């Protein structure tokens, strides 16, 4: 063993001129191997870190708004708080959200989130309009855009009536675009 060690030791260091090409070959091999391995290993790491972006959030279920009879005699939009069950990574959370039930025969429910920059829009009883407190986007009683910076009218939420109970599916929509596009 140690007999074979000596000549290599000399070749490696003393006969420098001869070993230059060999050294650079080994260097390339080494660098290549390390880069390939590093790249292969970084794939699961990156996928792991990007998991929340790569997976679709679970479908949001239907939340109860109230008995449908309550809304039969509405004359102005009625604000209701609903409970939305969602997954927050490893937790189940129940959060409260506000929605507007509109007066009229066909049931319509509006999201209070302004399609401009996402402020919550209150119903202005005196003016009989929805007026956004942030940048004064103004909407009619049925949510249609009247004036201001909003790119579209207020967003309708999916709703249905089941066994006399009005239900809504709460969603967020992309801001600043003229069409209604749900955020997943």
């Amino acid at each position: 063993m140690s007999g074979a060690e000596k000549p290599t030791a000399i070749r490696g260091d003393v006969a420098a001129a001869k070993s230059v090409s060999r050294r650079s070959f080994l260097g390339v091999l080494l660098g290549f191997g390390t880069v390939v391995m590093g790249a292969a290993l970084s794939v699961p790491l990156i996928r792991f870190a990007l998991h929340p972006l790569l997976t679709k959030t679970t479908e949001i279920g239907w939340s109860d708004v109230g008995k449908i009879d309550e809304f039969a005699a509405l004359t102005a939009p009625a604000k209701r708080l609903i409970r939305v069950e969602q997954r927050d990574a490893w937790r189940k959370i129940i959060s409260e959200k506000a929605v507007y039930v509109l007066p009229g025969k066909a049931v319509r429910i509006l999201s209070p989130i302004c399609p401009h920059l996402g402020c919550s829009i209150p119903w202005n009883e005196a003016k009989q309009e929805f007026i956004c407190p942030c940048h004064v986007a103004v909407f009619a009683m049925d949510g249609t855009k009247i004036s201001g910076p909003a790119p579209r009218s207020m967003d309708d939420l999916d709703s249905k009536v089941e066994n006399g109970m009005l239900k809504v599916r709460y969603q967020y929509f992309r801001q600043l675009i003229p069409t209604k596009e749900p955020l997943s």
Partner: protein
Amino acid sequence: MLNANDPEETTQSQHVTIRQRLYKWLDVRVGVGSILHEALGEPIPGGARWAYVFGSVLLFLFISQTITGVFLALYYVPSSTSAHTTVAYIVKEVTGGSFLRSLHAYGSSVVVIVLLLHLTQTYLYGAYKGRRELLWISGCVLLALMLAMAFTGYLLPWDQKAYFATTVGTNMASDVPFVGTWLKRFMRGGDEMGTLTVSRFFVAHVFIIPAVLIAFIATHVYLFRKAGAAGPPSEDPVNPQMPTQRFYPRQVVMDTIVALVMILILGSLAHFMPTELGPKANPADTQYVPRPEWYYLPIFQWLKYWRGPYAIIGIIVIPAITAALLVLVPFIDRRLERRPWRRPIAVGVFVLILGGFVAMGLMSVRDDRRDPSIAKQVAKQRQEVEQFMREQFEPEGAATSLSAPVVAVVDPLAAAGKKVYDSESCDACHGENGVGTNAGPKLAGAIAQKSAEELSNLLRHPTAKMIEGEMKPVDVSDDDLKALVAYIKSLK
């Protein structure tokens, strides 16, 4: 020929010029040249050898453990309520989570193996000789720190085996004279294992021990470079005589090859046999047979032989003497002779202790196999782990959904079912509200999600496996059965 070669020649020389210019630009500002020279130019008497790879491989493994550990912390919460759920989330939900956790868990075992190889090589080669006492001692400190990393990391998943192994581990501390009880309370953050234990172990595992580790790794490498590579056993440890070879390229290539092979082995293990997670720690479990990780088995077995008033000798005195012997080796074995065959006592003692460790570990495994009650319980624990791994990930309930049992009772059918559940003594084995006990499985969760039809069928006609576990067919009226099924289904 000449003409054809000409353009190639020019591009190549231009290429080199750009590279050289970049190198020079960096060298002037950063001093790359001297750094590289310093890092790669280490002379090795007698030349590169496969026997010398372990130090570099350990450094590489440490970096790998750091990276995987940092990534795991992305989803981990150190508290007794969330630790297990978040690890289950990593294993069952997060993309590549099981793979990454396995890399980290197997990595810790590989670190211990390579540490032992590094220690053995250094010892047999007498590489602690010739003014290398501090180098050796810093290595011993690194060994202790790495074992502490393994010990603290083991608890963090907060599953059954983590909980009970750490309960035993921290209890051992109370045998230390005078300060034992205090030490145990200090480690646990109180008398009992609990959420403070998780956060203490987490802080130790992630902040304190790694910081000390990095400091000692730097010290170890510095002292190694200061003393110089010792070379083969026939070399003079103080004034090397042999022709030298530089660290780069041959030794670097050998080190890298072994590191790459390590990663391949680790990656295959993590991919094909991922580490499992057991059910959440249940301190009320009185049947659980805790077993430490394999590298602690020798100590575990050793402790069995020391009972009563002599326990302190086995638990404290003998291990302390062994550790002191290890640390003081360079002061005890002072001759400059390095060849192992000329150091029969030093090598003999080492082989004896190492052999003792291996024998103890094997005896521990043998004991467990021979004792039928333990073998049965271990098999049952194994099944519970497999069962838990098959179950879907169950998210932590929201504070508001904690009122679920109350909601269940609001449903009149389920409320009637609860009465049947209690009067039929289902709770004796399946626990109050179906949380499960040692005698019977948990009903809440996976079982409650079965269809009503399947549940009533199982209650009327239990499977052979259920009967074996002492489950009897439920003998109630059809209406009561319907109510009972409604109650069980409300437990999800």
